């Protein structure tokens, strides 16, 4: 069973599959090198190829995390990102464990994807059965994931404790070309699925009952949503780390909903806030030699605070005039009543 699963995931086959993406990474690297020359930005000069990948991964995270986060936050599901990140950590641990025990040769990010998706489905199915997303079941999934992760790692102590820190806190310099390519695949899946099902996801998020009456298979869209969340969490984990990854799903979205009127505007603003956080955060992390995840979140929270202030100013000084409300006009319908 494991062999069957592992075959397409093993490094050799995987690299062949990701071939075109490596070409894209080269291209991207070339663009940034050129940018470094003309703008004199030493951070992204040619020998810092890891920073090229870090920025690419960061930019992708800045789009997909708030995009999915928008659909989660407005259903009071902000916690689910955190729960999935911790189960993804278990996935990483399983990957590392299998690699050292049976020499599986799979990147831990892929086992993390698999485990986080299974956990996502599990949370969703439990919530369907009990008819509520509850804090308790989410907390149980979260701690089970983390407990499983730490246990597997401590069993294998020695070789593993060293490398696990980058999964916990994220690390700019360890974004390998393979990890970046995997992220591009995750990014394409997330953007593609959200692009296709945006109407349905919006309806289900805003008004689940009405969406169900209008014939949407609500449970299926919920399952899609949590599985996409799992993909985003695993993708963002390499820079943000397990512990802080959920912040990218929540903080920019919360900031955007302070200042936006429409849903489309909210999505756009949250992506902009997230991009600023990620790019500024990564740049600062490079110069300070700090962990990127922490700085990205600090920038995001600062932006959030700014958004709260702007939002308050908008309500005080903005256009508060209530327009004249028209009467309900029964005669507007095609055949006049009278």
């Amino acid at each position, binding site marked *: 069973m494991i062999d069957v699963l592992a075959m397409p995931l093993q490094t050799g086959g995987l690299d062949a599959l990701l071939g075109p993406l490596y070409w894209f990474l080269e291209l991207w690297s070339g663009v940034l090198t050129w940018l470094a020359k003309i703008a004199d930005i030493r951070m992204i000069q040619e020998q810092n190829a890891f920073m090229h990948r870090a920025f690419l991964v960061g930019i992708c995270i800045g789009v997909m995390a708030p995009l999915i986060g928008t659909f989660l936050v*407005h*259903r009071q599901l902000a916690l689910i990102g955190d729960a999935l990140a911790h189960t993804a950590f278990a996935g990483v641990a399983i990957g590392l464990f299998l690699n050292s025990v049976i020499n599986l040769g799979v990147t831990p990010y892929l086992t993390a994807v698999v485990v986080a998706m299974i956990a996502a489905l599990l949370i969703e199915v439990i919530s369907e059965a009990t008819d509520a997303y509850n804090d308790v079941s989410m907390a149980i999934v979260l701690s089970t994931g983390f407990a499983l992760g730490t246990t597997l790692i401590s069993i294998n102590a020695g070789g593993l404790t060293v490398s696990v820190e980058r999964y916990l806190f994220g690390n700019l310099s360890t974004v390998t070309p393979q990890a970046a390519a995997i992220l591009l695949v995750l990014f394409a899946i997330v953007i593609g699925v959200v692009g*296709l*099902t945006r*109407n*349905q996801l*919006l*309806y289900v*998020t*805003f*008004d*689940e*009952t*009405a969406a*169900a*009456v*209008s*014939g*949407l*298979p609500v449970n299926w869209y919920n399952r899609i949503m949590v599985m996409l969340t799992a993909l985003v969490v695993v993708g963002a984990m390499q820079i943000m780390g397990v512990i802080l990854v959920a912040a990218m799903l929540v903080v920019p979205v919360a900031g*955007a*909903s302070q200042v*936006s*009127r*429409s*849903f*489309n*505007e*909210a999505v756009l603003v949250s992506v902009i806030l997230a991009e600023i956080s990620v790019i500024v955060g990564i740049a600062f992390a490079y110069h300070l030699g700090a962990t990127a995840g922490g700085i990205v979140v600090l920038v995001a929270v600062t932006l959030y605070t700014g958004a709260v202030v702007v939002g308050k100013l908008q309500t005080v000084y903005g256009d508060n005039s209530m*327009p*004249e*409300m*028209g*009467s*309900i*006009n*029964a*005669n*507007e*319908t*095609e*055949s*006049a*009543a009278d």
Partner: protein
Amino acid sequence: MSTHTERETTTDQTAASHSQLIEVTDVNFGYTATPVVRDISLQIEAGEYVAIVGPNGSGKSTLMKLMMGLVKPDEGRIRLFSEPAHKFDDGSRIGYVAQHASASKEMPITVREVIKMGRFPHIGFGRLSAADWEIVDQALETVGMSAFANRRVTNLSGGQRQRAFIARALASEADLLVLDEPTVGVDAESVEAFYDLLEALNDEGITILLIEHDLSAVTNHAERVVCLNGQIHFDGPTEAFVESDALVQAFGTAAAGLGGV
């Protein structure tokens, strides 16, 4: 009688073969072992204006959920547009206005974006066409909310928000409008205008199914009343309902005195 049949043939989709939009046969249902509704049988025909009334906890909303196929009955059979209700998925035929508690309360979204959702069952994965947007704006106009099109829904009063939801149901251009206590929080003047609107829609051949707590609204507007309290206490024309003792049975004596128009 002749007007009745005329009305049915004009609503091209509904009338021809099946005039029964909803058929409930011997239905029992409970979320736990205790039944919420029992021995329910009723039919709703195309073009009717039916109100379901009953005290709090009488199973009105549960019956609505059963009829819309949102929950499956423990026993009995429910057909919606001649299909088993829980399998029915042609959402473009049903417009739904909930008690406003059901929608998200903090989400940034404009009135127009809410009404846009009424077109989603028609467009699936596609985009709204110019014609769809025209229908959206027409619905805005009908409920008198054009000036609020780009307002954030969360900044509106309860009544204004409810109007937006009604407009969403209108924009769905459904054959069947289902309204679950639609006028909760709506100011008294608008309530009157709102019921006039429902009557106008009904005159066009749209079937109206209204779940109401406010008895006077029901007795003034609906053609047929189903009085529910766990089981059906009354099902018939509104005039007969007013004269019957169903109210006392369902609501108890005290409420009957208050509610009796």
